């Protein structure tokens, strides 16, 4: 009689996500099983899917370009050469030249740094403020929770673009104000994600046990709540950076973001607006850069969500076993 191989991929019941049954009522949902083997580590699962690998590589390239931007650029970013203006993509200028004769490829490369910098700083701001507020209201609850959540509702009532526009209108266009505007606009999203996951972790029995043992709030927060909300927050971070890049590009497109001559993707599209019929390349390439970077962040965000969400993770492991099996060519 062979014991079921440890870590059998399937819980007793056929349908994943079988509820554990209300506490206080005998349930056979997950009675005792044999000790489970160490499941495949998260990141190995992440790299299983080619989509994640590709987006990770793309992001790496974008990061390198952001760091080494100016060094990589074949031409000086602000070098004006009006006689050579509006030239289509050629051997000399892979992405062609803009209305002042500047090399579009060089400006797109250097603009990478600005766009990433704005997005990362803005999301960092939103992460710290939002998650802080989210944890406090999710964990503490009571009137503090109601107040914070009403504030979040108010912020959510403002459409993203209009709120950012209003903030920039008041503080004037420029890099720092754009970062602040986008940061403020994304804070409520992080607050909601953090609050939701903090609430779900707080009711977990292992937190209740800690409270019954007299463990202080600080230790509970540090050891139980924070690691508990890490998953959803990481996923939200990846998605928010993607959308922050879009927001910065939109603000720059409206002439309110990064100011010339400093190149930014949105601004380059703004300048291209007047030349759509003569110089398609002025609009296509910066837009493509935004699209590829944002797509990479989104895909990675999805990949992270699949790995970090327990239910999805067991599904991924099954598929991994099936693939290994199929590759081995063994027919049951």
């Amino acid at each position, binding site marked *: 009689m062979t014991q079921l191989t440890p870590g059998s991929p399937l819980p007793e019941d056929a349908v994943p996500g079988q509820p554990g049954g209300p506490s206080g009522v005998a349930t056979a949902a997950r009675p005792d099983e044999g000790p489970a083997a160490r499941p495949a580590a998260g990141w190995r699962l992440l790299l299983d899917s080619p*989509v994640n690998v590709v987006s990770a590589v793309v992001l790496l390239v974008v990061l390198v370009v952001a760091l080494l931007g100016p060094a990589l650029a074949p031409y000086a970013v602000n070098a004006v050469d009006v006689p050579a203006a509006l030239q289509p993509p050629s051997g000399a200028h892979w992405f062609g030249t803009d209305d002042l004769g500047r090399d579009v490829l060089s400006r797109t490369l250097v603009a990478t740094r600005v766009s990433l910098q704005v997005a990362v700083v803005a999301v960092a701001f939103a992460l710290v403020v939002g998650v802080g507020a989210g944890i406090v209201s999710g964990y503490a609850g009571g009137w503090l929770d109601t107040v914070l959540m*009403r504030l979040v509702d108010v912020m959510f009532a*403002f459409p993203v*673009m209009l709120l950012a526009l209003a903030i920039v*209108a*008041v503080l004037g266009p420029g890099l720092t104000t754009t970062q602040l505007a986008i940061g403020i606009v994304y804070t409520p999203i992080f607050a909601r994600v953090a609050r939701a996951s903090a609430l779900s972790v707080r009711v977990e029995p292992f937190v209740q046990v800690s409270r019954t043992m007299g463990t202080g709030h600080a230790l509970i927060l540090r050891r139980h709540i924070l690691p508990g909300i890490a998953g959803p927050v990481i996923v939200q971070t990846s998605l928010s950076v993607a959308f922050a890049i879009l927001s910065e*590009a*939109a603000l720059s497109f409206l002439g309110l973001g990064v100011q010339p001559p400093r190149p930014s993707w949105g601004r380059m599209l703004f300048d291209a607006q007047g030349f*759509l019929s003569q110089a398609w390349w002025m609009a296509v390439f910066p837009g493509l850069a935004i699209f590829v970077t944002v797509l990479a962040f989104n895909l990675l965000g999805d990949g992270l969500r699949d790995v970090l969400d327990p239910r999805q993770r067991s599904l991924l492991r099954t598929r991994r076993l099936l693939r290994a099996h199929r590759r081995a060519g063994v027919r049951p």
Partner: protein
Amino acid sequence: MTLARVARFLGRRVLHSLVVLLGVLVVVFALVHLVPGDPVRIALGTRYTEEAYTALRAASGLDRPLAAQFFSYLGGAVTGDLGVSFRTGQPVAVTLLERLPATVSLAVVGLLVALLVALPAGIWSGLHEGRLSDAIVRVTSQAGVSVPDFWLGQLLILGVAVGLGLLPTSGYAALTEDPAHWARHVVLPGLTVGLVAAAIMTRYIRTAVLDVAHAGYVRTARSKGLPAAVVTRRHIVRNALIPILTITGIQLATILGGVVVVEVVFAWPGLGRLTYDAVASRDYALVQGAVLLVAALFLLVNLVVDVLYSLADPRIRLS
């Protein structure tokens, strides 16, 4: 269905929306009063005399204490008087209402395009999880979400209008005045707004359908030997419609707020463009009014969705 219970439920929802709207009012009011420069001085431009400055300041009430200004603004907002624009001298409320139909008509067209694409795609990929068609829908919707809408607008202009010379790149006529003209001009901006919204909605609809497809009652339905079409229509899609309703509501509200850049690309004279111009010319009364109006629309749409949601879901209607 006791009317009293539903009424109480709606009453709580309306009250919640009003509280949030009050919060919005406070934030909008504070936003404008953080202005580093003095709005009146900026509005008056160069040549003006001290008397002109003090007269305008008094007329617009900026010399009164902040609290008094807020309450008069609040009073005004309730009665529809959102103050007067420094630049054009016209009441803000009138200008906003004139520009509203353009934004609303664009948002509705955008939403229709989104629904036409997202409903079939989202439901299909939800029902065929893991298949090739599901993967294709996932990747294309992922790509759709990542496209900057103003760039999509420019590509459409490049391709359709400039390239094929088919449709006008911008220009507007009110739907009520000249429907044909409006229709021709709303196609490109509508597509731009619609396609991006479709990408976002497809992802949500797919998840909604997936969650329902894994539910216990779907397995029960299959165990009754019902035809596949009946299982899909009566059990999966109908249950998924409720979260889909919420998604549609949120998306309409998001489009209303987010059309700014699309309106700029297509010179569409809606609220978004008005706000953009107002921001460019530091016309604070107009910025204040526009943000307030869109936020109020936002809340109204969410409230309507809540009502429909509670009527559609017996668990709430008869709880």
